């Protein structure tokens, strides 16, 4: 009987190990394939050149989409900061009742779950109603909307880690709510906020469906904020569908750069929060 029970346990553990291996191998395999293909397609010209090919009139590199993506994600995340950080600071018991906090949290979670294509459609409707064409500004606003729930939830997690004693000490010394929040809690949570911002940046730079209609696509660098701009994910999508060696290579190179940025951003945000938290009270 015991032997049978041991056998059952072994069987399930074996099955679970197999499943974990499938999960890890398949996901790492996907990234591996793309990194490997992309690495082969990389070159200095691909990376830095803004020139156009004399034959097809297409750009020879992907520098335009790297810069476009940086504008879009950077702008979007900066804009989202203006809403997210105050929002995370105010969703606390000093300002709002427990039930309202829970309700707003659920709303943020639901917003997080709404697919980016819906954000894209909304952004497009907003652009149309303002009689604008797809532009850098449209992409930035859409990405900002998309980043708000992500950044706020991450920042809320960070703030919840601030020790209660600090807050109580501040109130004990006679500080007002605003003084406590802005001078004690915000300062304590600052390293974590950096992590939250980078997390949102990683999401924003990889998002395709949201910028598909709102940021447009352009082979040139945008001269103003009202012009369309290329971005890495859209370059991957377009170029992969195009025939021709150069386009394929550009798609692979863009995938490499995009994965690289996302992985670096998440690695840096991890170490950054460890580094910066040296100076906070534990």
């Amino acid at each position: 009987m015991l032997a049978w029970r041991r056998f059952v346990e072994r069987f399930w553990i074996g099955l679970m190990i197999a499943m974990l291996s499938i999960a890890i191998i398949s996901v790492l395999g996907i990234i591996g394939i793309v990194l490997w293909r992309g690495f082969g397609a990389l070159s200095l010209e691909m990376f830095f050149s803004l020139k156009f090919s004399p034959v097809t009139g297409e750009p020879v590199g992907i520098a335009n989409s790297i810069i476009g993506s940086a504008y879009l994600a950077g702008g979007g995340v900066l804009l989202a900061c203006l809403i997210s950080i105050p929002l995370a600071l105010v969703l606390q018991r000093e300002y709002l009742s427990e039930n309202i906090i829970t309700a707003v949290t659920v709303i943020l979670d639901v917003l997080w779950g709404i697919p980016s294509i819906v954000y894209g459609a909304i952004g497009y409707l907003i652009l149309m109603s303002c009689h604008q064409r797809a532009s850098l500004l449209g992409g930035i606003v859409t990405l900002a909307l998309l980043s708000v729930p992500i950044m706020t939830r991450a920042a809320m997690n960070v703030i919840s880690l601030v020790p209660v004693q600090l807050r109580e000490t501040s109130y004990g010394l006679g500080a007002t709510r605003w003084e406590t929040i802005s001078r004690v809690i915000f300062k304590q949570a600052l390293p974590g906020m950096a992590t939250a911002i980078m997390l949102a940046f990683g999401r924003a730079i990889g998002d395709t469906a949201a910028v598909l209609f709102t940021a447009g696509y352009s082979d040139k660098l945008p001269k103003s904020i009202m012009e369309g701009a290329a971005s890495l994910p859209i370059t991957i999508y377009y170029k992969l569908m195009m025939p021709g060696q150069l386009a394929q290579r550009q798609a692979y190179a863009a995938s490499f750069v995009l994965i690289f940025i996302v992985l670096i951003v998440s690695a840096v945000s991890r170490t950054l929060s460890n580094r910066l938290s040296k100076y906070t009270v534990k």
Partner: protein
Amino acid sequence: MLGDSSLKYRVREDCITGWLLKVPVLIAVGMLVLFFVVLTAKSWPLLTGGNFWQVLTSSEWLPSEGKFGLWPFIIGTIAVTFLTMVLAVPVSVLAAVFLNEFAPKKLKAMALPVIDVLAAVPSVIYGACGVIAFIPMVKALGGALGINTTGRCLLTAALVLAIMVIPVILSIVRDVLAAIPQEAREALLALGATRWEATYHVVLKLALPGIIAAIMLGVSRAFGETMAVMMVAGSIPEPKPSLFKAVYTLPALIADKYGEMLSIKMYDVALMTAALILMVVIAFFNFGAHLILIRLRRKY
């Protein structure tokens, strides 16, 4: 340290900032309301046109004749999501149980950050990999089975999506399992149960609502995924989905056709109706899942 530290000034400052800080709350809540109102307003002509039911169930997609049957897209989305879940749920749930209950500490410490990072990999990358690797693979598989397929089909889309959804479900299930008190396991172990028996009879039973919530979140992720599906699914409307035939989903429809939508009457209305359906279904699943998770968090 404080510029003007009179009590009156400080109290007024506190009062004003208290009001100002409520603005972002209104913006966040307003966003969800705005999305819903804008999409409903935009798709109003179809919703109230009298034949909304026909729009949902008709397979005739002929925009130039004003016929917008969304059925192939709805059933396509459901088919892709269902197959994705069939593939992803056993893998991710069992892997999460192993990581939390059986894995040595070192493996756990290594695997968890990796999974977090993987959950952040953009969907277009999964799509690109689908194009590079999965389309030829499925085509070869179809060839071996004697089925004529281009490789851009339901199976490919579900495979790519499953790999995308695995880290999402895995990390939520892991969180749920980690929150279950250690005593629950110890009680059974003390009675002489094996670790698997303790896991199966106690941990999984307590975690079941959380696992269901994780699956619901996975469903909503798969249901709304655009790029990864669009790049590998073939995008031909099929009223009867089949493994090796192309499939067209609602998000892919919106992303594909937005360029044409202004040239044909009612086209934009039909696409925004698709977006509204998408949003309502996903918001529903998300809302339910988070309610379950909140309950669980309060319990433990």
